[in-house]
């Protein structure tokens, strides 16, 4: 086997890289060479440990020792003390903030326990196209337990006691929803899985369906037993071809194994699942619109009541839950409501999956207990802001959510705290914005999405959002006034109060929260006609600094519209009436002579 008896893993993540982890690697290698250990100890650069706050990190294998805040000059000590003498370098060990004791084994460090995978327990671990792997990971045991040892009422009681709230965004109690669906008597009832994930930046549900489809099927059957239904439907958007493919395979395998179909586990309980495809309309994530779409009607919401639990799909009692909500159910049944309720905050139990996107180093899918702070998510798990830029804001909940600023970084994430801060949990998309993002353009971007996705049924959403979008466009072009800011706010509040469904009621959230948290930036756009982030093209001007310009003509040659004039070796000039603000000249200039005013 390996000629190496020891490995030194040095974090090469972006932020450790910035704090000289390269030099650490070099010094370690030099030191090992000097001591003649190059053949038995290997130095390796790794991806981000996600512990950036304490970086750079060096991990010694096989004994799992983690050194934090390592400096290039510490290389000698690590080699001489740890590797040669076998003594741990205490001063470089992580100190537990509570016990003040040094922790050396990474497995004992609280930090590495920040992420807890409940919903994602099998994602990236099993082969999603093989039911056997799911069964080996205790798959379908929860369904077995429910069918053989629990009454439907007991199951509902357990789910209620777990405190789980719907992960689609609204945060309604899952157990209560099931109870309502159970109470309504009917010959036929439906269990619907809402897999119409549509927020920009969200990919939680897709990842669960692609990575662990059986967990959703099992949970739907458990729900069917609880509410008295034998029909399951999954509403999934056609843009998710791989998730659809894997679901089809999973459903077939479950049927062949007798885990879906008639007389499951010989208990007389029947349950089967069919797929329904959506065409990718955002509004169809709203449960009444979703049901209409499944019925072959236009995807338009209707006023509740009647709730789907009373009259849903084809007028029958229907229970609609989100993918992530379902995926946690088998774990709740097997490990118990008490266990689930022990995770999270007072009113939001369990874990939440988040999709990290935008200007963050570790773009990815994470799962943390409710109550984790935004700071932990962004700066520890997410590895901080890309390219060493400054954090500006985080949009949670997609286009229906709000943008939170620096002052909100330490609030524990849960349904109620996010609402109190002016945003929402939503389905779990998190878009991280840095100092280069303009908050007016960003609000306009989200509004653009809502305008395109509005079903057009109610006036506040159809007309109001369009007007909001226009106003934001004018502000971006420098044609806004202070009065427009008041109009923006008033109109937003009216839309919120009067729109028919969740889409319209939440669509002004980005505008309201961004105006609340970044009011100065809005004012700068309308009074100074400036975009502080340098994003709004109409509000900026490319200018040549005569002190730096040497007259090399590079800018004039690259300009696509010939807006730059000037003789060789003479100072050049940009004609603002011709300039299209493409930025090509600035990129080309080697003398930093072009700047934005």
């Amino acid at each position, binding site marked *: *086997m390996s000629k*190496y008896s020891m490995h030194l*893993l040095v*974090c*090469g993540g972006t932020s450790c890289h910035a704090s000289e982890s390269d030099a650490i690697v070099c010094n370690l290698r030099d030191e090992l060479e000097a001591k003649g250990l190059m053949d038995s100890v*290997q130095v*390796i650069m*790794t*991806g981000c*440990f*996600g*512990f950036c706050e304490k970086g750079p990190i060096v*991990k010694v294998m096989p004994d799992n020792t983690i050194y934090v805040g390592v400096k290039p000059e510490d290389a000698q000590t690590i080699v001489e003390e740890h590797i040669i003498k076998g003594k741990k370098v205490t001063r470089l060990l992580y100190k537990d903030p509570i016990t003040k004791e040094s922790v050396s084994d990474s497995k004992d460090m609280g930090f*590495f326990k920040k*992420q*807890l*995978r*409940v919903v*994602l*327990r*099998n*994602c*990236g*671990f*099993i*082969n*999603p196209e*093989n*039911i056997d*792997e799911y*069964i*080996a*990971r*205790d798959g*379908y*045991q*929860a369904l*077995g*337990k429910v*069918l*053989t040892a629990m009454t439907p009422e007991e199951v509902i009681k357990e789910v209620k006691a777990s405190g789980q709230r719907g992960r689609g965004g609204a945060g309604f109690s899952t157990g209560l929803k099931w109870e309502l669906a159970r109470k309504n008597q009917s010959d036929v009832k439906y269990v619907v899985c809402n897999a119409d994930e549509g927020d920009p930046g969200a990919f939680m549900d*897709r*990842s669960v369906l*692609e*990575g*662990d489809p059986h967990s959703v099927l099992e949970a739907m059957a458990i729900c069917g037993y609880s509410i008295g239904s034998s029909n399951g439907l999954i509403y999934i958007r056609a843009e998710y071809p*791989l*998730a659809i493919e894997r679901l089809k395979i999973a459903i077939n395998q479950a049927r062949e*194994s*007798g*885990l879906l179909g008639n007389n499951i*586990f010989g208990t007389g309980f029947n349950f089967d699942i069919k797929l329904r495809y959506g065409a990718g309309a955002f509004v169809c994530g709203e449960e009444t619109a979703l049901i209409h779409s499944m019925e072959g009607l236009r995807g338009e919401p209707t006023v509740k009541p009647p709730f789907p639990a009373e009259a849903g799909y084809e007028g029958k009692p229907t229970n609609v839950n989100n993918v992530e909500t379902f995926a946690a159910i088998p*774990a709740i049944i*097997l490990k118990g409501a008490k266990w689930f309720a022990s995770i999270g905050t007072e009113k939001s139990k369990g874990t939440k999956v988040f999709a990290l996107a935008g200007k963050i*180093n*570790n*773009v*990815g899918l994470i*799962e943390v207990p409710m109550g984790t702070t935004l700071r932990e998510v962004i700066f520890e*798990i997410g590895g901080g802001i890309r390219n060493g830029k400054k954090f500006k804001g985080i949009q949670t909940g997609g286009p229906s959510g709000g943008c939170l600023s620096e002052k909100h970084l330490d609030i524990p994430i849960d349904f109620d705290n996010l609402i109190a801060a002016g945003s929402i949990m939503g389905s779990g998309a998190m878009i991280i914005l840095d100092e280069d993002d303009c908050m007016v353009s960003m609000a306009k971007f989200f509004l653009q999405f809502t305008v395109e996705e509005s079903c057009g049924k109610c006036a506040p959403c159809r007309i109001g959002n369009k007007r909001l979008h226009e106003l934001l466009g004018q502000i971006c072009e420098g044609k806004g006034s202070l009065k427009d800011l008041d109009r923006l706010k008033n109109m937003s509040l009216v839309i919120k109060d009067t729109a028919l469904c969740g889409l319209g009621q939440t669509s002004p959230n980005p505008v309201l929260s961004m105006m609340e948290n970044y009011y100065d930036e809005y004012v700068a756009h309308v009074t100074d006609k400036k975009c502080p982030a340098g994003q709004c093209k109409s509000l900026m001007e490319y200018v040549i600094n005569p002190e730096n310009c040497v007259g090399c003509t590079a800018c004039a040659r690259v300009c696509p519209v010939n807006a730059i004039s000037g003789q060789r070796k003479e100072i050049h000039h940009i004609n603002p009436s011709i300039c299209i603000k493409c930025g090509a000249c600035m990129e080309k200039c080697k003398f930093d002579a072009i700047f934005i005013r």
Partner: protein
Amino acid sequence: MSKITSLADLKKKREELQSGFGIRVKAIDPENVVQVKVAMATCGIASGAKAIMEFFMEQLERRNVAAFVTQTGCMGYCYAEPTIEVKLPGQDPVVFGFVDLKRADQIIEKYIKTGELVDGIIPVNYQTIDLKE
């Protein structure tokens, strides 16, 4: 596929599967071969995971390494796609990110054949639950 007709049946099947995890390999003992899992969610595939998976399947056989290659879902490291997990017999699994053909070749020649680590390791930074009652 045989039908599972009772909870006892399911438990029996689980024990069988867990004792051998014999699902992935029919003929060889899984504990004694190299296991390679390729993250194959839409995002992984879009960044080239399919080609990587094919490369491992083809090359491991050609280079006479007793191994099996399987697909799995998203590991969550979107920033480092394609990602793969390699488990050598008797050792903890190691996740590698940014796996292109060059690195895939290194992983086979260095890590799989000699146990020597290569760049691009992604440290595990989460814990997962065990559903055991």
